[in-house]
C-alpha cells in the first residue's frame, strides 16, 4: 500500500514538474518555431504550425545583414571578463565577511543587496557622463567594469553563503601552520570552495550575457554584444518577427547549451546555503 502511494506521488510530482518545465520552456520553443517560418506565416493568428512552410530564410538573412560573430565575441568577452573580475574582488570580500565578521557585516551585506533594487535608469546619466570623461563609451572594458559592479552584490552573497559552510577551524589550522593570508585564500579556501565558485561563475556569466539595459545604452557600433544584435531586429513598423526570432535563437543558443551542461552545478550553487 505504502509502495502504491509512493508511486502515485512520484507520478504526480513528475507530471507537475514536466508541466512547469514545459511552461517555462514554451516561449523558447515558440521563438524557435517562429524563426523557421516566413514573415507572413510568423504573424498569422492562429499560427499554422504544420500547415505552413518551414524555412531557414530568416537565419540566412540575419547572417547576411549582421556581423553575428562580432557581437558574439563581445558578449563572451563582456560576460566572462565581468564575472572573473567580479570573482577577484568578491573572494576576499566574502572571505572577510564569512570568517572575520564584524557587527556591521550583516548591514553591509544587506546594503550591497539593496543596490540591486535601484532602478538602473536612475543612474544612467551619471554613469554615461563618467564613461565620456574616462573615454570608455562603446568599449568592452567599460562594459566589463559596469557589469562587474552590477553583479558584484550577487557574487559576494553567493560566495559568502558558500564560505560560511566551510569550517573556520580548517583555515585556523592553516594559519597555525604558518600560512599567510594569500596562501590561506589561494591554497586552502579556494580549493575547498571550487564548486561554489564555479556555480557563481556560471550564474553570473548567464546574468551578464542577458543584461540588456547597460549593454544597449553604453555601446554603439564597436562593443555592442548580442543584446544589441537582437534589438536591431525589433520594429513597431514592419514585419520582422521571423528574423527577430532567428536572431534571438542565435543569441541565446550558446548560453542555453552552456546552462544545459552545467545545470547540476547551477542548481547546487543557487540552493546551497540560501535556504538554510
Amino acid at each position, binding site marked *: 500500500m505504502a509502495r502504491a502511494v509512493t508511486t502515485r506521488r512520484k507520478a504526480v510530482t513528475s507530471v507537475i514538474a514536466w508541466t512547469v518545465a514545459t511552461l517555462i520552456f514554451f516561449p523558447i520553443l515558440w521563438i524557435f518555431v517562429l524563426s523557421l517560418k516566413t*514573415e*507572413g506565416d510568423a*504573424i*498569422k*493568428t492562429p499560427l499554422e504550425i504544420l500547415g505552413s512552410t518551414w524555412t531557414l530564410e530568416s537565419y540566412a538573412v540575419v547572417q547576411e*545583414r549582421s556581423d553575428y560573430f562580432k557581437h558574439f565575441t563581445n558578449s563572451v568577452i563582456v560576460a566572462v571578463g565581468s564575472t572573473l573580475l567580479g570573482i577577484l574582488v568578491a573572494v576576499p570580500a566574502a572571505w572577510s565577511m564569512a570568517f572575520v565578521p564584524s557587527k556591521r557585516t550583516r548591514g553591509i551585506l544587506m546594503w550591497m543587496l539593496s543596490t540591486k533594487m535601484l532602478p538602473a535608469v536612475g543612474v*544612467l*546619466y551619471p554613469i*554615461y*557622463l563618467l*564613461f*565620456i570623461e574616462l573615454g570608455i*563609451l*562603446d568599449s568592452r572594458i567599460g562594459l566589463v567594469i559596469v557589469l562587474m559592479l552590477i553583479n558584484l552584490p550577487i557574487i559576494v552573497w553567493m560566495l559568502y553563503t558558500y564560505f560560511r559552510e566551510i569550517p573556520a577551524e580548517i583555515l585556523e589550522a592553516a594559519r597555525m601552520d604558518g600560512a599567510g593570508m594569500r596562501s590561506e585564500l589561494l591554497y586552502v579556501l579556494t580549493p575547498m570552495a571550487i564548486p561554489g565558485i564555479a556555480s557563481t561563475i556560471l550564474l553570473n556569466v548567464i546574468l551578464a550575457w542577458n543584461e540588456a539595459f547597460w549593454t*544597449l*545604452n553604453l555601446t*554603439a*557600433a*564597436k562593443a*555592442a554584444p548580442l543584446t*544589441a544584435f537582437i*534589438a*536591431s*531586429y*525589433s*520594429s*513597431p*513598423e*514592419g*514585419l*520582422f*518577427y521571423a528574423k527577430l526570432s532567428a536572431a534571438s535563437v542565435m543569441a541565446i543558443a550558446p548560453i542555453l547549451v552552456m546552462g544545459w551542461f552545467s545545470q547540476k552545478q547551477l542548481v547546487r550553487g543557487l540552493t546551497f546555503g540560501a535556504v538554510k
Partner: protein
Amino acid sequence: MHFRKLVCTAAAATLMASGVAHAETLTIATVNNGDMIRMQGLTDDFTAKTGHNVEWVTLEENVLRQRVTTDITTKGGAFDIMTIGMYETPIWGKNGWLVPLDDLSADYNAGDILPAMAGGLSHDGTLYAAPFYGESSMIMYRTDLMAKAGLEMPAAPSWNFIAKAAREMTDRDNDINGICLRGKAGWGEGGAFITAMSNSFGARWFDEGWNAQFDTREWSDTLNFFVNMMTDSGPAGYATNGFNENLSLFQQGKCGMWIDATVAASFVTNPKDSTVADKVGFALAPDNGMGVRSNWLWAWALAIPAGTQKEAAAKQFIEWATSNGYIELVASKEGWANVPPGARTSLYQNANYKDIPFAKMTLDSILSADPNNSTVDPSPYVGIQFAAIPEFAGIATEVSQEFSAAYAGQQSVEEALAKAQALTNDAMEAAGYR
C-alpha cells in the same frame, strides 16, 4: 634623377596620406524598417564615391529614442549621424543640439524637399534634419468587399461613411472585420492615431493657455465614436493592436479597411506577403466636415549632433542618402515601388513613379497635412499627432494607456478622459506651462 624620384615618391605618399586622413568612419544610429535596411545594403555606393566607411547601429524605434537622447544631451559623441523624427527635430534644433543643414550643396537641391517635410524638420526656418522618407496616413480598403457591400469609397470620405461601410463590410462568420485601427498604448502607436482622429472632430490637446482639453465634448465625441465603431466592426482585442498586428490582419484578408501610415501601402500591395494585393484601394483619411482631416505627418530624417568631429563627412552622407541620386539607385536595384517615399517633390513628377498605385494618394495625404494648423480651434503647439514639446511623449504615453484601458473595457470612456485630463494638467503644471 634620384632626387626627382624621391620628390615624386614623397608627393605620392603625401597625397595618399591625405586621402587616408580624410577617409572617415561614420557611426550612424538608425531604426529598423525596410527602407533603412535597404539603405544599409547600398552603403557600398557611398563608400565608393567618397571613401568614407559607415558603421550602423540599428535599434528598435523606442530604444533608439532613449539611446540617442542620452547621447545628445550629454554630448557623448557616440554617433555622427542620428535618425530622428519630426517630433525631436524642432525641439533639438531649438536647443542647439543639431548642426544646421543650411549649407548643403547646390547639386543636392534642398528646395526639392516637400515643403510639409522641410517645415516639420526645421526650427525658425532652418533645416536641422534631412528627410529620408516621409509619410502621412490614409485609408487602405478592400475594393472587392466595398463592392460587395454595394458602396463606393469617395476620394475624401467622412467618418460617418467609414463607420457605415465598416458595419456593412463586417462578416464575423468569415472572420472579416470592417475596420482595423490602432488601439495599442504608446504615444507613437494608438496615441498617434487617436490624436490625429481627434483633430478632425474639432478636439485639441491644449488650449492657448496650455490647459488640457480632455473634458470637452469634442474629445468625448472622438473617443465614443472610436469605441462604438471598433466594437461594432473592429477585430477582437483591438486594444492591443498596433501597426504590425493590423498589417498582418489586412494582409490575411481579415480587414475591410485599415487607416494607417502611407508606407504600409507598399506592404499590402506586395503579392509576396499580401493575400489581397490586387484588391486594395486608397482614399484620404476621413474628416468630419470641420475643415481638418484625420491624417498625420511624419518623417524619419537624418541629423548631425552638434560637436561631432566628422561634420563634413556626415553632411556628405546625408546628401547621398536623401538625394535624388539615391532614389534612382534604389529604383535601379529594387524597382520604383521600393524607393523611399514622401520626401522629394520631384519623385511625384517622375513618370516612372506616377504608375505606382498609391503614389498619388500618398502625396495628396502629405500635402493635406499641416503641422502648423492641425486643429479646428487655435492651439499653442506645432504637430498633428503630437505636440512638439519635450513633455509630450511621457504625457501622451500615459494618456494612451488610459484610452487603451477604455478600449479593453476596463474602464468607461468618461473615466479614461477624466484621468487623462487630470494627469495632463498635473504634468503641465509641474513643467511650468500653466
